C-alpha cells in the first residue's frame, strides 16, 4: 500500500460487523489510536442496539492554530454536509474527546452500494474533521475567490503540537510544511526523499502537478511566524496548488493528500528502514556461509565416509551375483 487511505479500516470493519448483527444485543466498547495521535472510541449499548456512538480525539494544536469549541473551523458544517440527518453531533462530546457523533444504524440508505459508501464516509471522519479548514480554503480556490475573514497566513494542525502553513490567494494557494523528525537516521532519509519530490516533478507527464520545492531554511512566506514553530530538521517543503487541482472530485483527494503529507513521508521512511534491516540480515547470512566454507575438516570427513560406503556396496553386489 503506497498511499494512505482516507478511511480507517478498523472503524469501517467495526461498523460493518455491527450492521450485520443489528438485531443481536452485543455490547461494544472499543478504544484505539491511529497515526498522528488521533484516537477513536466506539460504543454500542444493549439498550439501544441501533445507535452507535463514535468519539474522535484530535492531535492537540500548537499556539498558532486555533480550535473553536475543540474543533477546527468549518468542522461542524463539514460534518453536517457529509452525513446529513443520519448522524447527530452530541454536545458536549465525551470526556477526553473533541467530537462525539451519534449514528442511527437503522436509518441508513437501503441500497447496498449507497450503504457501503456512507459507511466509508463515516470511517473517513478524520478526513472530514481535520481537513475541514483546508477544504474551505481550497473550495474557494476552485471558484477563484478567497474565503472571507481569513488571515493571510493560516496555520493548521497535522501532528501533535505541530502545524503546517497556508497562504491563500484567489488564483493559487501556497502550502508550506516544516518537516520535523525525532530520529537522526529518519532526518537523513526524509531529506533524500523530499529532494526526490523536486526531482520527480521534472519527469515528463508530471507537468500538471503542483510545483514543489524544498529548502533547508524557512521560505519567504513564513517571515512573520515565531521561531519555535519553524524548527524543521528535514527542511521546508512548499507546494503551490492551482484551481485545476481542486476541481470537482479532485477536491477530496487533494485535501486528504495535503493533510497527511508528513504522515505519508514518515510512513515511507519507516518502511525503508524495515526493508534495509531485511537486506542486512540476508547479507549477514551470506557472509556467514562464506566463512563456513573456510572450515575444511567437515568436508574431508564426509568425502572419506562416502568412499567407504561405495567400496562396501560394490563388494555386496559381487557376492550377490555369484550366489
Amino acid at each position: 500500500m503506497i498511499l494512505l487511505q482516507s478511511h480507517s479500516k478498523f472503524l469501517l470493519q467495526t461498523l460493518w460487523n455491527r450492521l450485520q448483527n443489528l438485531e443481536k444485543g452485543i455490547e461494544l466498547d472499543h478504544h484505539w489510536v491511529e497515526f498522528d495521535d488521533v484516537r477513536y472510541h466506539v460504543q454500542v449499548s444493549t439498550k439501544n442496539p441501533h445507535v452507535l456512538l463514535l468519539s474522535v480525539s484530535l492531535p492537540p494544536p500548537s499556539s498558532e492554530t486555533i480550535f473553536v469549541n475543540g474543533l477546527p473551523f468549518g468542522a461542524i458544517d463539514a460534518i453536517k454536509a457529509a452525513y446529513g440527518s443520519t448522524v447527530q453531533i452530541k454536545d458536549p462530546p465525551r470526556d477526553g474527546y473533541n467530537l462525539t457523533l451519534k449514528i442511527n444504524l437503522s436509518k441508513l440508505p437501503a441500497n447496498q452500494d449507497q450503504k457501503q459508501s456512507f459507511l466509508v464516509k463515516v470511517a473517513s471522519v478524520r478526513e472530514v474533521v481535520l481537513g475541514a479548514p483546508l477544504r474551505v480554503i481550497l473550495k474557494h480556490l476552485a471558484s477563484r475567490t478567497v474565503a472571507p475573514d481569513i488571515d493571510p497566513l493560516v496555520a493548521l494542525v497535522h501532528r501533535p503540537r505541530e502545524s503546517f502553513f497556508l497562504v491563500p490567494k484567489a488564483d493559487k494557494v501556497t502550502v508550506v510544511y516544516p518537516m520535523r523528525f525525532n530520529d537522526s537516521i529518519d532526518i537523513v532519509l526524509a531529506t533524500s526523499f523530499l529532494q526526490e519530490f523536486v526531482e520527480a516533478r521534472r519527469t515528463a507527464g508530471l507537468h500538471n502537478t503542483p510545483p514543489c520545492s524544498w529548502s533547508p531554511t524557512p521560505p519567504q512566506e513564513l517571515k512573520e511566524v515565531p521561531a519555535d514553530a519553524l524548527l524543521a530538521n528535514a527542511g521546508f517543503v512548499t507546494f503551490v496548488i492551482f484551481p485545476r487541482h481542486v476541481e470537482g472530485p479532485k477536491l477530496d483527494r487533494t485535501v486528504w493528500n495535503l493533510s497527511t503529507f508528513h504522515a505519508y513521508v514518515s510512513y515511507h521512511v519507516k518502511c525503508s528502514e524495515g526493508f534495509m534491516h531485511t537486506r542486512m540480515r540476508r547479507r549477514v547470512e551470506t557472509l556467514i556461509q562464506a566463512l563456513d566454507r573456510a572450515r575444511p575438516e567437515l568436508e574431508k570427513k564426509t568425502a572419506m565416509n562416502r568412499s567407504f560406503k561405495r567400496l562396501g556396496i560394490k563388494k555386496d553386489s559381487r557376492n550377490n551375483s555369484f550366489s
Partner: protein
Amino acid sequence: MASTLRPYLTCIRNTLDAAMCLQNFPCQEVERHNKPEIELKSSPELLLNPVLICRNESEKCLIETSINSLRISLKVKQADELENILTKKFLRFLSMRAEAFQVLRRKPVQGYDISFLITNYHCEEMQKHKLIDFIVQFMEDIDKEISELKMSVNTRGRLVATEFLKQFI
C-alpha cells in the same frame, strides 16, 4: 574509482598472506593465560610493524600483526550524508553479530569503521587462504551492499514522490 579497487584488494591479500603466520603463544606476564598479544601490546618484541594501505584519502586498511594474533581495521568510503548513515547502520549491525562471525571485533579500532581480530586458534580451525578469501570478499560485499542500499532508498524516494504527485493530476 573502480580502477583502484583491484590493486587495493590484491595488495591487502598479499599483505595478509605474509602477515598471517600465527602460532600459539602463552602469555608472558600471567601464568596459564593465553591472550591475543595485538590487543594488549605489552611486549614490543612480540609485535610486528603495522602496515597501512591507503586507496585514497577516505579509504584505508590497517593491518597490525603480533605473534599470535592479527588485527585488520577498515575505513570505508562515505561520500555524502546518506552513505554516512547507511555505512554506520550496516557496520553496527554486523559488529553486533560479531559472535556469529567469530573473526569480527565487536568495536572498531579508533579512527576506523570495522575491525577483525584473527587469532592462532582461528588459523588452526580454518584454512588460511580461505580465511583471506573471506576477508577480501567481506570488503567487496560491504561496498556492494552500501551502494545497493543507497540505490534502494533513491528508488523508493522516486516512487513515493511520483505516486504522491500523480494524485493531483
